[in-house]
């Protein structure tokens, strides 16, 4: 409840307006030659950083934008202005 996130469109809002979209891992790899293990790692393996991590959030109750932001997981606070994404 207390988390705030800064939506690139709407500005700082209460965390419960957003849906978490996971850690930033980059685009999905090509299917060609992908082993089941590699794929599973891409989908399920998270770094779970104790500190600052880049992650995706969706402004579900607001403008409907996906964006990335840097969050310090140890204090549950956003650290920087998010980058603008669609």
């Amino acid at each position, binding site marked *: 409840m*207390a988390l705030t996130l800064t939506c690139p469109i709407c500005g700082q809002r209460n965390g419960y307006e957003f849906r978490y979209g996971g850690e930033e891992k980059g*685009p*999905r790899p090509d*299917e060609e030659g*992908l082993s*089941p293990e590699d794929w599973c790692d891409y*989908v399920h393996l998270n770094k779970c950083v104790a500190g600052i991590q880049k992650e995706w959030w*969706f402004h579900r109750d607001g403008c*409907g934008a996906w964006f990335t932001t840097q969050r310090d997981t140890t204090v549950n606070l956003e650290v920087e202005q998010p980058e603008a994404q669609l």
Partner: protein
Amino acid sequence: MKRLTHLPTLRIDPSQEIPLKYNRRTYQGVHGDTVATALFANGVRILARSLKYHRPRGLYSLDGECSNTFMQVNAIPNVCTENTLLRRGMTVEAQNVKGTPETDRMGFMDKLDWAMPAGFYYRTLHKPARIWPLALKQVRKAAGLGVIAPDFEMKGKYDEIYPQADVCVIGGGPAGMSAARAAAAQGLRVILLESRPWLGGFFDYRPAEYHDGVPLYRRARELAQRLEETTNVRIFSHTAMVGAYNNNLITAFQQGGPGDHFDERYIEIRAVSVVVATGCIERPLLFENNERPGVMQIGCAHRLARTYGLLPGEQAVFSIGHDLGLEAAIDLFDLGLKVACVADIREDGQDPRLVDELAARKIPFWRGWVATRAHGKKTVTKVSLSTIPGTQQRDFGCDLLVASAGMTPVTGPLTLAQAQLQYDLHTGFFLPAQLPPKVHAAGRLLGLHDALAIEASGHLAGLEAAADCGVSVDADRQRARENLDSRPGPVRGCKLVLAPVKGRKSFICFDEDTTIKNIQQAIAMGFEATELIKRFTTAGTGPGQGGIPGHNLPLFVAQYLGEASVAAQPTVVRAPLVPTFLATYAGSHHDMCKRTPVHDSQKQAGGVMRRIGVWRRARYFSQDFSCREEIVNVRNNVGMLDASTLGKFRIWGPDALQALQRVYVSDMSKVSEGKVKYSAMCNDDGCIIDDGVVVKRGANDYYFTTSTARAGVTGEWFRYHTRYDGWNFSIVNLTDAFGVINLAGPNARQVLEKVADADVSNAAFPYIGYREFTIRDTIPVRAMRLGFVGELSYELHVPSSYMQALWDILAEAGRELNIRNFGVEAQNVLRMEKCHLIIGAESELRTTLHDVGLGFLWDRTKTAAKTVGAVALRQTAEQEGRLKLVGFKMEDPSRTPKDGSLIVDRAIRGYICIARHSFTLEEPVGLALVEAPLNQEGTRLEIFEDECGDRRLYAKVVPTPFYDPEGTRLRI
């Protein structure tokens, strides 16, 4: 009792009497009274009995720091009556007593304390184990304070409010008011929270001099009036701050006054900056019978007189450790209280002017003396005083003992805001070593006592808060700091906790009846950490939230163990800081759910409405929940279902097709105009999450449906899975824009052709066709020929505003055929007979497209699309050991197993997704997810139902679908 009616500090209006019913008798209070002060005015001294020992309890602090004044008010138990304003028509009853508080038949418990040492529940009542259930019964009977009736209903109006603020100031005393004023002067929006019904804090009731002959109370009123006139300051009085969270989210509860439209309301504020100016409460002095009615704190005694016009007693003894005690003794003496003696714990350090004033009144003043015992069975009749080392002793007869060891800063809000507290040797306080960002502390809680210093500290904090909001206040801030530095700093605090006594009846926690002896027992058993001693002895775990023992417990433990070995550590406080109603948390509790455009007519037609996801839908149309008639009607005639909750979307733009290829498993380039394409969506694990149909309405322009559950998340799903691609497509959610009527049954065409402005014959509008036409020259519809229920059926998508009109038109057109409604449950059975899936019913998070037999939908060749789930689908296509979907029939057709029943042999092999009696097939059928090889046709399945004991049901795996396997009925 006679009131002092002419004091300028009064917060009551003695001319307005308010009657009060207490324990079946009627008493008179006055406007402004709390319930407890009204009773006190009527001579009621014993307000409650304590939790364990049923000791008499009375007024002690007036600020709700303990359960001494908890009563049942208007059937609500555990109401803190010392801060509940008296209102007309209140019915109040004592609680936790057998009889009355005066003569409680449980009073003998006080003599049994030897049988209840610290932790005795845990240590004694389980040996032997069989006594625990017996003991439990007795413990349950004795435990707890108030009793709630099983049929109790919370009355009143509970509201919520989310006011906007740049700066939130907690505490409406001189520091808080100064801070609010300073921040507001910078043009910021300021909110001030004050727990008492008025502003003023500890200035409010004191006639002592503020400055230049102005008394403190008048100064407080001046400050308050100025704030009230400031438009950008909002004052919430009678508002207890209860929580502080990340990024300065502050929560509070306000009690409604006579003019308010709520009884209590929840307040949530997201402030840029917060100033905590909560001041101090008093630190209780511990001696024998330190909570006997007649023993009270300085502020309590002083405010009874000054705020409520009630002399706290006739003959008093003061045993105090702070100048406020001297001031109160002098003022109360002047108001008519006889003062036998003022014993000050401190040898020195008193304000000499106060000492002179005591001497002028010939009040005996003893330094280095302290109360050791209050005498009197129910209320105080006599007090023993002794020197601090206990070498000399004297007794005084009295009915009032004003006792207080010193001050305790109210640091709860700071702790909640993650400030780390540290013991400060000078003040004896636990003070924040470092404050979190954008949180400031001001005033008395820092140890200040000088009135001007307190205001200066508040002023500075207000400017600091303004700076947090981006206002440039550097010069002002510098001046404010210099001003504060020029005033007296924090005063040295008295450190004594316990008078020279053994402590068998010295209560460190009133709520839980914890004595000093209990703490010593815990330490003797090896506990050293205050936090653990708190848990073991329960000191501070009562409704007072540590208000009484919070400061004393860590000080005592540190002193007892020797401060060199154990540093004083405060125990942790948590939200809510004061007890609050769950009703207030619930607030106005509007259940926000969606209704379809024909909701009312469905209900009128006998629809039994159920909450399904965010919607309310008609599940049945009779009290026969097997829905026989609805089902038979669709199979043999024609029915109408409100399917408006289906997700509906438009997607278009140059890259729309690419986006569809990404999320749908099929090759969406094959979607052609005039035809619907059925497909499914998977997640990255290849597990099926949705199915629906897609139609093409123009170049790069598609209309598609999703399941009801996915309607809210499909837009974000598309955007999420294309987030790195920069594709140019647009998507708009039309779920609520269209109502949907599923017109189904062999006679469906006969109904539709009467009203449609288009040829709907089988040739012109065949199965899986898509058409757009109007109805009765007016209503535009998007029509799909689908067969979810296994019959000829039309899914008509109609603008929501026309939905009811179309429903009525179809009902009228079908009247001669006896068309009738069917609901979600009938549809569920119909589609099950046809083995059409509902995602979430026949699938779960680990069910892949292959598992439910829809693997054929996946196009393996479109690898460039990077379809969500494709990698996993490839990897799991031939995977063994998965749960597979099968159809089954029962060996004993008289019995239908319950949904969710397990398929077992020696282990669990799967479960039943759905099973219903099929009226079409005249026997029960169902679908189950079972481990291979149990999915082979003809396999006998053993079914374990909840609570079936040793009995099992048996079924056989059969081919699917059960009904019309050739699909001829869809195509008629």
